């Protein structure tokens, strides 16, 4: 019976972690979407500022 209890407890811990991970990943995805909509290039690039000489006019997108 003790073993059964322990297994249930373990299962609950794993379930809880699974839930936390799904919540986190969903929130992260929504934040990345938001940054894309805002055109936050530096932030989406992990804080790295692209050097100016590496940029050309070709990067401009026509909508």
């Amino acid at each position, binding site marked *: 019976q003790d073993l059964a209890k322990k297994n249930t407890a373990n299962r609950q811990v*794993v379930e809880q*972690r*699974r839930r*936390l*991970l799904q919540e*986190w*990943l969903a*929130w992260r995805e929504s*934040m*990345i979407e*938001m*940054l894309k909509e*805002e055109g*936050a290039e*530096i*932030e*989406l690039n*992990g*804080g*790295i*500022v692209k*050097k100016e000489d590496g940029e050309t006019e070709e990067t401009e997108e026509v909508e």
Partner: protein
Amino acid sequence: MRPILLSGHERALTQVKYNSDGDIIFSVSKDHVVGAWFSHNGERLGTYHGHQGALWTVDVDPTSTLLATGGADNTMRLWEVKTGKLLKTWEFNTSIKRVEFSPDGRQLLGVTEKRSGHLSTIVVYEIIPDPEAEQTDEQSLRIVCDESKATVAGFSYLAIYIIAGHEDGSVSQYDAKTGELLFNTQAHEADMQITDLQWAPDRTYFITSSKDKSAKILATDSLEVLKTYTTDTPLNSAAITPVKDYVILGGGQAAMDVTTTSARQGKFEARFYHKVFMEEIGRVRGHFGPLNYVAVHPQGLGYCSGGEDGYVRVHHFDKPYFDFMYEVEREQANL
């Protein structure tokens, strides 16, 4: 791998920072000197001399061109990283406790200390990211913190907000254009000072550490507390690791603050928690005094800590660090 010890400072470290490439570490200390070191081998790259008092804070711009420092001599200074040349000195009535560049490096903020007759402020300057340029004397923004003094502050993603942590344990969100206080929340225990605020790489969330022995992750937009990491010691610093979902916490009680005789050396450890699950996963010891600051390599390859003991310890993460995964993480990765 064994940690590398940077032993060039004569007094307690107050802040350490990697540049965006992760190859250089900048350190500031109560000994008035700014140090620059190669992160891979700990070799000293140079020092920056000029401050006349203890240094509290350092930051480097995203292109590793300009370095900002602030300290007890009531000045905030701008340096050329490459040559060590002092480019600009801004003078204030009180100490500068924190400096930080905006994500694009075109703004610099400073947090000024509160002292009789002077309220704590957050000041912002527009920066020209060119060592040859004449930098401005004009503040583009000045926020007066009349409720509780600011201890830490930084720019959000796209520099939309300035987020500040306060002496009273609260966190504020200001409009970074107008300086208007948009929102304030009691994130940490009342009257327990917020000691550090560090950003996630994309600045949509950040971590705060507090004397209340906890660290918390808050969402930049809502200031909602998303995660709480509870420890048994007052915290001075907290950092978020990229690549792996961990946070690193540093703190410890200074010997003079410890009332019992058994000041266990074990309290002076960097503590690793899983960012999402909020569970402690490991500790790294080594310092002989409290950890005043922890900084993470921007590509997640290692971390460094600056101690009250006067040392900077640089750690490169081993394979097991990267391999470690919770079962549910493995599940997720295999989807």
